C-alpha cells in the first residue's frame, strides 16, 4: 500500500488561505494532504507541542507563518524561527530526522504558493518514509529520545535562551557586552545537548535506579561526563542517590514539580 504520511501543519491565523476549512479537520477539501492546526501566530507554537506531536507518531510537522518582516505580532514569526532552530538541534540528537520539521512562510493570498509548500514537504516526508514512532511499531529508543527532548524543551534553561535570543544578540547586557550570533549559536548548541542528556538520564532513572556506568552505556557517553551531568542534576533537584549496591552508587530520578 502506498505510504500516506500524516503531516501536521501549524499555521498562523493570518497565513491560512481563505477556504481552508479548519473547523472540520477531517474534511479539509482544498488540501486533503495535511492536517491543519491553526494558531494565532506561529510564534505561539510551543516547542514542547511540536515534540509531543512527533511523539504521537506524526510523520512530519510543517510550521507556516507570515513572511518576515511581516508579522501580526511584530516578530512572532522570528520567534518561531528561533524555536524551530532549537528544535532541529534537539531532533538531531534523537534519531528522528530533523527534516521532518520544516518552517516556511506564506501569505494568505499566495494561493499558488501554499499548495506548493505542502507538496514539496509532503514529497520529502514520503521519501523519508513513515516515522519510526508511527503507532504500533514505535521505536522505543527514539521514543525515549523524543520524550527527553520534549522535557528539555519544557525546561527553563532552553526556554530562557530561546526567548532571550534577540535580546542577547542584539542588545548589550548590563556589562556592556553583546554576544555575537555565532557565540550564541555555540551556546545554544551546548545547552541543547546538555539539557537533552540530562532529561534522558532523568527519564531512564525514573524507571529504576541506575549506576553511572549503566547510564553511560545507554547514552553512549564517557562515564565521567555522565557523572558531571548527574552532579548538576542533583543540584537542580532532578535526581538523588537511591541506594548503594556494594560499591556502586545507584541514582533515581526525583519528581520535578
Amino acid at each position, binding site marked *: 500500500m502506498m505510504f*500516506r*504520511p*500524516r503531516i*501536521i501543519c501549524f499555521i498562523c*491565523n*493570518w497565513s*491560512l*488561505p*481563505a*477556504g481552508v476549512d479548519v*473547523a472540520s*479537520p*477531517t474534511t479539509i477539501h482544498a488540501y*486533503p*494532504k495535511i*492536517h*491543519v*492546526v491553526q*494558531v*494565532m*501566530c506561529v*510564534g*505561539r*507554537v*510551543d*516547542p*514542547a*507541542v511540536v515534540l*509531543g*506531536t512527533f511523539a*504521537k*507518531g*506524526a510523520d512530519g510537522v510543517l510550521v507556516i507563518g*507570515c513572511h518576515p*518582516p*511581516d*508579522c*501580526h*505580532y*511584530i*516578530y*512572532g514569526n522570528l*520567534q518561531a524561527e528561533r*524555536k524551530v532552530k532549537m528544535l532541529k538541534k534537539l531532533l538531531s540528537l534523537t534519531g528522528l530526522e530533523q527534516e521532518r520539521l520544516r518552517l516556511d512562510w506564506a*501569505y*494568505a*493570498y499566495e*494561493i499558488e504558493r501554499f499548495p506548493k509548500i505542502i507538496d514539496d514537504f509532503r514529497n520529502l516526508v514520503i521519501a523519508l518514509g513513515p516515522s519510526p514512532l508511527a503507532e504500533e511499531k514505535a521505536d522505543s529508543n527514539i521514543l525515549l529520545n523524543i520524550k527527553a527532548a520534549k522535557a528539555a524543551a*519544557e*525546561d*527553563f*534553561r532552553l*526556554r*530562557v535562551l*530561546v*526567548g*532571550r535570543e*534577540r*535580546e542577547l544578540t542584539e542588545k548589550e547586557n548590563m556589562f556592556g557586552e553583546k554576544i555575537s550570533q555565532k557565540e550564541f549559536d555555540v551556546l545554544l548548541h551546548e545547552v541543547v545537548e546538555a539539557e537533552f542528556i540530562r532529561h534522558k538520564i532523568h527519564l531512564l532513572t525514573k524507571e529504576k535506579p541506575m549506576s553511572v556506568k549503566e547510564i553511560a552505556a545507554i547514552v553512549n557517553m564517557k562515564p565521567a561526563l555522565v557523572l558531571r551531568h548527574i552532579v548538576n542534576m542533583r543540584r537542580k533537584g532532578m535526581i538523588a542517590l537511591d541506594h548503594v549496591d556494594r560499591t556502586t552508587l545507584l541514582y533515581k530520578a526525583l519528581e520535578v514539580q
Partner: protein
Amino acid sequence: MATDSCAIKSKRRFPPCRGACPAGVNVQGYIALLQQGRFNEAVELIRKSMPFPAICGRVCFSPCQDACSRKNVDQPVGIRYLKKLAADIEREQGRIKPDPIPKTRKEKVAIVGAGPAGLSVAYELAKLGYPVTVFESMPRPGGMMQYGIPEFRLQKYVVANEIAYIQDLGVEIKTGVKFGKDIQLDTLQSSGYKAVFIANGASLNRKLNVPGEDLEGVLPAVAFLRHVSLKERVDVGEKVAVIGGGNSAVDAARTSLRLGAKEVTILYRRSRKEMPALPHEIEAAEREGIKFYFLVSPKQIIGEGGRIKAIECLRMKLGEPDESGRRRPMPIPGTEHTYEADTVIPAIGQIPETSGLPSVLLDERARAILVDPSTLETRIPGVFAGGDIVTGPASIVEAIGAGKRAATSIDRYLNGKDLRSEREEEIEETTWVKDWEMIAKKPERYTTPSIDIGRQRVSFEEADELLVKIKERAMSEAQRCLECGPCSECLEGEGLCEGDKAVVDETLCTGCNVCAVVCPSGAMKKNEVGIAQVDEELCKGCGICSASCPERAVTMRRITNDQIMTRVLSVLGGGIG
C-alpha cells in the same frame, strides 16, 4: 494619558482609524477579515456600524486614512479603497439579502429626511426592533447622496442598493411627503409616533449677495446638481464660471463639463491650498481640463438681454487667519475687471432650510436646529435632530455618526433610560504606539488599481481572473495594517481569534522577564514584587508569551497548549491520508 479620573470614558481603546471615524467603523476588524480574503464577512462587519460601505468607499473623506498609524512608516493603509472594493464585490456577486427584523417594539419612530443621517437612524432603530417610517419630500431617498453628489462620483445604483438593504430590514420609506406641509410635528405625534428624528439637511444655496444674482443663467450649485440628477434638461452654455471652492463647486464644474460646456472655470476667493474640496477631486477636475482662477471674488453679475454676459470681479489677497484657521481673503481696491461667462454657478455653500420647522427647535438666528451635542435632543422631549440641519454642510460620515448617536438616544429615551451615561462615542483611541523602526517599509504595495470591474468589457473567464488579481492585491494591501488596537473586535464568534488573553500563574512566575521580551504588544509588565502582570487592554491574545515562558507560568484563557495538543491528537487520530 490617564483616563481613570474621567468617569464617562470607557477604558476600552480603539485603534486610531476607528477613533477617527465619526461613525466608529471597525476598520481594523474588516481589514483583518480582508487579509484572509473574507470579503463578504468584511462587508457585513462594516454593516454592523453603518449601512453605506460602498457609498463611503467612494466619497467619504476618510478621516480613518488620515489617522492611520501606518503613515509613520510609509503611507496609510488604503482603507477607503479596500472598503469600496469589498462592497463592490459583494454587490456584484449578489448582495446579501437580510431577513426583515421582527418588530419587537411597539413604539413607532418617525424620521424626517432620507439622507444619510435619517437613514442611519432608521437602520439602527430597525435593528433594535422598532417600527420606523422615513418621510422624504423628494421622489427618491438618499438626500445629497441621491441628488447632490453627481453620478460620475457616486453611481445611483450603488446608492439604491445600499438603501434597499435598509428597506429589506423592514424600514418603511415614504417619498413625496413634505414635513411642514404634508405632515407636522403634532400630526406625527397624534398618529402614534413616540419619537421623531429630523434630518432634512442643508440644501439651500447660500446667496452671493451681489447684483444680478437673479439673472437667467445663474444656477445655484445644489439646485443645478439636483436638476441634473433628476435628468431634467439643463443648458449650461459654452463658458461656465463656478464660484466657490468646496465639493459642490468642484462637482458642479465637472458636471458642467459633462453637459457640454466648452470652458469651465472655478473662481475661488482664496488660493488652492485653502480649497475645502477633497484633494483628489480637485486633481480629477484639473485632469479633466477645468481651469482655476484663484484670489478672485464676484462683485456683480452683468447681464445683456436677460442673459449673463460677464462677471465683474475683484482680486483678493490673503490676510490674517480667521476663526476657521484659513487666511481671510481681502479685496484689493481698484482691481475690478470683467470675466466673461454664459453661466454662473454659485457654490459658496449650503444652508439648512429651516422655514418649515417649528421655531422652538431652532437656534436664535434660525439658522439650524439647536440640539444637545452629545445626545442630539432638541428642546422638545422626544424630538431629536442631526446631520447637516444641525451642523451646516458637513459630510456623509458625520451624518451617519449623528444618526448612530441619535439612535442610541432615541432607544434610551423610549426605554426611560439616562441619555447621557457611558456612551460609545466617548471611547478613547489606543495609546499603544509601536516601534516604527521595527516595521518594514513597503509603500510600493500601496496601489490604487485603475481596474474598474464594472466598466471593462471582458469575458467571464477574464473577469474571473481579474477578480482573483484584484482580490489578491486587496489582500496584500490589507496586510499593511499594523493592527494598532489591542483587539479588532471583528472576532468574537467569528473564529478569527478567540478574544484570548494571557493569564499568569503568579505562584510559578519567577520574574525572568522573557514574556515581556517576547510580547509584541507591551502587555506584560512586572509588578512591585517582580511578578509578570498582563495588561488585558493591550494583550492581543497571540499566545507567544505562553509558548515562551520558561516556567510555563503563562497560559491562555482560551487556547492553551493542552488544547493545541488536543487538536493535534484529534487530527492525527483521524487517520486520513
